[in-house]
């Protein structure tokens, strides 16, 4: 399936782009992380410490083991610091 993958804040900076479109068969966010980390050292570095990474699927916060079936957009970002 085709997915838009978005990055924010320091994840965006480490990966070097705010978004990319990828083809994947990943069933869960965790599988997608493994695929992305295998692409190059920048993805690997940005996604190395998952305790510092938050995920949204189609603009809703999600867990690492959430299924990707039907998803169109997945975003990775650090813990939020709003307010």
């Amino acid at each position, binding site marked *: 399936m085709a997915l838009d993958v*978005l990055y*924010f*804040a*320091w994840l*965006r900076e480490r990966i070097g782009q705010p978004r990319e479109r990828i083809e994947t068969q990943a069933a869960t966010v965790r599988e997608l992380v493994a695929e992305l980390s295998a692409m190059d050292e920048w993805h690997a570095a940005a996604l190395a410490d998952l305790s510092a990474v938050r995920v*949204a699927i189609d*603009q*809703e*916060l999600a867990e690492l083991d959430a299924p990707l079936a039907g998803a169109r957009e997945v*975003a990775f*970002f*650090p*813990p*939020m*610091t*709003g*307010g």
Partner: protein
Amino acid sequence: MAARVQSAPFDLGAELAGFGAGSGAVVSFSGLVRDEGGRLVALEIEHYPGMTEKALAAYGERAAQRFGLDDWRILHRHGRLAVGEPIMMVATAARHRAAAFQAAEYLMDWLKSRAPFWKREIGPDGPGAWVAARAEDEDALSRW
């Protein structure tokens, strides 16, 4: 009953004019850019367009239901904000003060840790560190 995301400054007083008319108790919170002892000249706030608006509206509606609000408003800025400028505000209106206070604190706790905003410090020499999430902010959520 409105959530707004914008880069333009806002005026707290103007936002509160007429807010809560017919209600008994109005609480507002606003957050301002601190200079952190001269380390900062500005904050740069990144957000997730699309998700942000949905998240703010969802938190507002949840607070309205849970605390029986007569009205609520959330406004959050993004982009470059100079020291002293307002970053965001929430306002809540309810019949009695306890509900209005609790709803405002509830909204702030959710915004701090669950709304997709990221702050970066801008010092005299340019962009500095991304602001780290505070453990107290995460802990604050557990009370609701």
